[in-house]
């Protein structure tokens, strides 16, 4: 375990960690914008810069990508670092002054009323790349990426067209620090044609990526709960039965087996998508036994039972 010094405090950092991880682990705050624990470090926003002294030489480095090596001396809050961060935040303020995360940082570093050198562009996206990386690393859909260069750089789908790779999961909307991604769930959408319109049921739209998804309706309660496309993708990846995602999370209650009716034929055991049903002994016979802690409540077994022994209510 390498030992490093952060702000005069000796810290034993675990193997293969970064300075940022070691600092946060020990309660030392370093501001970040493009960092997320679930993603590979990116070093895009440069807000996490720290002073690193190694072998008598002091440099300014991004702590999210710098590995914690033996004997490092790190300072996170010197005047040099504060000056560097003020420049970064100032540039972000010039381009995107509206997002609350940027305003908070600006007021903390005292540059809210700083005279600007450029005309304010008032754009929300700060190019942190969190949405692009989440789509690639977590969802593995690769629906969006950066396009263009310099100040024209922006996040978009290929050729700005509606992307067929997007599965409508909403991870990009959830992870975006500036709330620029516009995802809406419409309870009852309508398709307008000249002189005519028809209802197409619940829909999820992602305006930034020009995509629109039909939302699955729960078989039990009739409420829309999630886009059908990602559910289908997860289902195929896990080799589950077609009916697995028919019910919404709140309707997923484990059923129970009526011992008097059950024949012990095992039809439910082989049909259970995740193996939550096992057999138990009853004298010389056997009976099905649903383990409620494993059961996901898909109710696939209910209409497969020949004698109706699997019931939803007591």
């Amino acid at each position, binding site marked *: 375990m390498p030992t490093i010094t952060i702000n005069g405090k000796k810290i034993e950092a675990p193997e293969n960690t970064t300075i940022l991880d070691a600092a946060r682990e020990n309660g030392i705050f370093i501001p970040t914008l493009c960092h997320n624990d679930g993603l590979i470090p990116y070093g895009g926003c440069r807000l996490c810069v720290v002073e690193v002294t190694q072998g008598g030489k002091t440099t300014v480095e991004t702590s999210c990508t710098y590995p914690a090596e033996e004997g490092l001396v790190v300072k996170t809050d010197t005047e040099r670092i504060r000056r560097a961060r003020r420049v970064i935040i100032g540039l972000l303020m010039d381009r995107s002054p509206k997002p609350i995360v940027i305003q908070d940082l600006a007021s903390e570093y005292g540059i809210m009323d700083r005279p600007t050198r450029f005309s304010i562009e008032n754009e929300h996206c700060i190019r942190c790349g969190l949405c692009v990386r989440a789509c690639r690393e977590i969802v593995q859909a690769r629906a969006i990426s950066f396009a263009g260069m310099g100040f024209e750089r922006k996040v978009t789908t290929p050729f700005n067209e509606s992307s067929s790779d997007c599965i409508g999961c909403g991870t990009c909307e959830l992870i975006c620090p500036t709330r620029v991604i516009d995802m809406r769930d419409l309870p009852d959408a309508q398709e307008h044609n000249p002189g005519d319109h028809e209802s197409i049921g619940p829909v999820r739209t992602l305006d930034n990526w020009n995509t629109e998804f039909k939302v699955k309706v729960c078989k039990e309660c009739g409420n829309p709960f999630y886009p059908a496309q990602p559910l289908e993708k997860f289902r195929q990846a896990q080799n589950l039965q077609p009916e697995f995602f028919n019910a919404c999370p709140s309707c997923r209650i484990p059923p129970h087996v009526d011992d008097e009716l059950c024949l012990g*034929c095992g*039809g439910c055991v*082989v049909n259970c998508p*995740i*193996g939550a049903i*096992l*057999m138990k002994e009853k004298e010389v016979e056997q009976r099905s036994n649903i383990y409620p802690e494993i059961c996901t409540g898909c109710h696939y077994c209910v*209409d*497969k039972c*020949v004698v109706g022994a699997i019931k939803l209510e007591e």
Partner: protein
Amino acid sequence: MFDYDVIVVGCGPSGLMAVGELKKRGVNVLGIDMKTRLDKNFRSASGFFFDNQEFNGEFIRLEPMGDKTRIHYEKCGFSIDYPAPMESIFNTHMVSNSVVPYTIATTKVPIYHTFNPTTWLSARYQKALEYGSPFMTKTLVTKVKEIPGGVEVTMRKDGKRGKLTCKKLIAADGLQSRIAREMGFNRMRGSMGIGPTIEYEMVGVECPFPRGDIYLFGEKMIGQRGQIFMVPSPRGQDAYRVETAAQLPAIRNYQIIEHFTKQSPFAPWFKNAKVVEKSAAVVELITPIKVPYRGNIVLVGDGPSFAEVLYQGATMCGYMAAVTTEKELKGQKGFDEYTQWWNATFEWNVNPKKMGDYTKRFLFGRLLGTKTMDMLFELAAKYPLVAEEAKAGVYDFGAVVVNHLVSLPGVPPDIVEKLKFLRDADMGLMAAQLAKDAQALKK
């Protein structure tokens, strides 16, 4: 390094055969099953045995030996004992709404023999125990994973997880095999629908027809769309197994069998009858897997097959899997040999059209309507089928019946055409025709 040389998942007729046969050859083997006991049949099974004829690429000869029967598999080259005599069945009946039976009968060679699946299983289980095979019951295998040189098996017992490793794995976990699904084999297979079934084994049935299996269809008797099979049971001359076939939801099967035995015109048959045993199953018609192995895992029995291999086929699969797995353990290409045997033996593998032929016998009523069938059956009663040459096996049964019905005098030409269509159609044509009929009905 590995816990076992071979793990057999699923101990039905093929799994028990494979475990016993491997242990006899000195292989370190383990049998895993979800059931609580292995010497009893819980899932409803057909219980008939086609012998003395070429069936599924095998010629089976029965040798009665007093209170037991020796079964010789002539082509695979092995014999097993069944510890009870087997009853010969000479008749097979079909009944539509008019209650006039359509009978095919033979006098010299029986159409098939009946047996008790529980007796069969317990004989195989005892044999496997004699060789000292270990078993693990109440255990569900949830996942298999290939690791270098072997297979890792994840299982669940009493709600807890466990892991075992082996060099080769035989998956004999039956129709709707979890292992076949987990490994992604089923993605390329075409499913023709799920059909649950329930079976009552009854004694004291007063059936007026000559002893044989009876296939009944028609809404009048059943109360709704569905079919009933009555197969003679070895429990006595008045014992029958009453089975249903209907579509989802499965509870319909229960309604059908209760209606049939209590309210239908056939209820007097069951006035003094007693239910001895109840069992059920969920059957899926799904196209077979052509190469039933990957890496160190081989699929045998019902799992990779079309519909069913029957007990006789499953035993054959278990034996061949044991022989070829032993070769595979020695470094030879055993699984390739198994695949060759698999594709050259079962009729639906040799000729895919047979899959359609198998389902045709259940489609008379649906395609022609019960009224037409009543008319045809009444006509056929006057001109019964000379049955000596009619080999009514599982797969050519439909064609045999159609040939007879077409040859009857006075059948209207449009019905002759429909019957010939049924005889010659493959699955695709048939599905299209049924869909068309269903649409016409709706209008």
